[in-house]
């Protein structure tokens, strides 16, 4: 965490959270519509933000629209608070909204994330905002927006299952490992954003509100709290999540998503929790992993 002297100062020249109130209202209307139709992609007039499209502008606009002065914001990318883009976005909100920021999942009221869901189960008073590059789960099967819109409207999802069938026929497995399509509330097929499929089960009946922002593609969608979210599969090829054959080298966790670190060019490897806050909390609580245990001995 940077020192107070280095953190960007709140700049009151900007409207709170950068966007003007009209724009925030427009985005909130889109969010409400999205919550009313779980998993349905609502078009919205995405604004040009000071960050490039593709770098989280959608998530940022959602966050900016719902952020209040009392909120505590956490921003993660690949599960960590300290990755460059997470730092950049967190600083943006510090500067334009002056809100308190935190790295502790438990303390946050709003969590903006890229590519991971925190390991710690979220609560009803929290909101998870996902950054989404391509909101349309059928996009790579059908490039035309006119056609995919119709398929969703008519619940014509045969194409999606054809892809899954084909994967099993060719590879023996469903070959999608991230951005694994889900069906929300038994209706819309939705892209959970490029989170690893490992995280899909967390979305099911999550107590927190889940909001999804795609700035470049100009879509917002939502999963209300306690909504059914089912990963697509076949009865005889059920959805499974990734597993590692070793625990986190630092904290010993056996049920988290692990990052693989290359330590030398001889094939040396370390595996560490991708969720940096989670790993830190476990270590503080006294848990150890193979590497920290060895060092202690």
């Amino acid at each position, binding site marked *: 965490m940077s020192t107070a002297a280095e953190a960007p100062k709140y700049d009151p020249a900007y409207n709170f959270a950068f966007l003007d109130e009209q724009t925030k209202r427009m985005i909130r209307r889109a969010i409400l519509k999205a919550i009313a139709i779980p998993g349905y992609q609502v078009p919205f007039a995405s604004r040009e933000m000071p960050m490039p499209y593709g770098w989280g502008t959608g998530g940022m606009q959602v966050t900016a629209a719902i952020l209040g002065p009392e909120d505590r914001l956490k921003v993660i990318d690949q599960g960590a608070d300290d990755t460059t883009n997470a730092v950049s976005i967190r600083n943006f909100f510090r500067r334009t909204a002056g809100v308190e920021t935190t790295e502790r999942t438990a303390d946050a009221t709003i969590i903006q994330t890229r590519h991971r869901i925190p390991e710690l189960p979220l609560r009803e008073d929290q909101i998870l905002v996902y950054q989404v590059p391509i909101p349309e789960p059928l996009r790579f099967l059908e490039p035309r927006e006119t056609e995919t819109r119709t398929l969703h409207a008519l619940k014509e999802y045969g194409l999606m299952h054809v892809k899954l069938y084909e994967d099993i026929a060719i590879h023996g497995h469903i070959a999608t490992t991230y951005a694994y399509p889900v069906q929300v509330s038994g209706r819309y097929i939705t892209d959970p954003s490029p989170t690893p499929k490992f995280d899909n089960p967390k979305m099911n009946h999550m107590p927190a509100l889940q909001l999804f922002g795609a700035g470049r593609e100009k879509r917002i969608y939502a999963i209300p709290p306690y909504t059914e979210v089912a990963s697509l599969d076949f*009865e005889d090829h059920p959805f499974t999540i990734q597993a590692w054959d070793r625990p986190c080298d630092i904290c010993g966790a056996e049920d988290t998503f692990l990052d693989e670190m290359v330590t030398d060019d001889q094939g040396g490897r370390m595996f560490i929790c991708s969720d940096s806050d989670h790993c830190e909390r476990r270590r503080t609580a006294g848990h150890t992993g193979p590497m920290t245990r060895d060092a202690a001995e």
Partner: protein
Amino acid sequence: MTSTPNTNALLRASGLSKFYGGQVGCFDVAFELWPGEVLAIVGESGSGKTTLLNCLAGHIIPTSGVVEYRRHGEIMRNIFKMTEAERRSLQRTEWGLVHQNPADGLRMTVSAGANIGERLMALGVRHYGDIRSAALEWLERVEIDTERIDCRPETFSGGMRQRLQIARTLVTRPRLVFMDEPTGGLDVSVQARVLDTLRGLVTDLGLSVVLVTHDLGVARLLADRMVVMKDGQIVEDGLTDQILEDPQHAYSQLLVSAILSA
């Protein structure tokens, strides 16, 4: 056609016309199709038979006239009064369409098995093993080597592609199948085999079929009844055997004499 409307008919066209600006596509077409019946619409190119088929299948909106279809357990309804959603649902479930060019009716970039399985999956079948067995069963039925189940149609010959298209269309046992020159694009030597497969399936499954063809031989082999089209209008209709044996209209006589001499 002056038959009294039969309330058990499956499909009915009345006063059906389609104009393209000043040009006639089809004009004042009327007929009925009963369950289990194969009706051939016969004519040369430019006769309006393809326009007619497209109207019947709900792909183009007629200029005037009505197309009615009786959904399972329901009464006759004008298909153009249905919502687009309902029409599309009909096209996916109770209807089938076999295109002249098999590539138009197949996904060329996914395997034969996936092609056959798609309609099943669209209906909600979620057991990979079951889908695969159904695909294997149908490949056998249309006489495609089951080893080819994971191959893409790109690697198939024209005849094989057409047989795959037929399997893909019939796997969900649609009540009504539209066929547009099903053997039209194939080599003569291959046509006979595909026709034979079709005939077997139509009989086995008791399909109702509207079949468009320029080839009276195809009509003779597959159809119970036929209508002859010329310049957008029906010039003669009746049982296939009767027309072939004793054509009344001059144009029908011309067509019939052509196949007899071939």
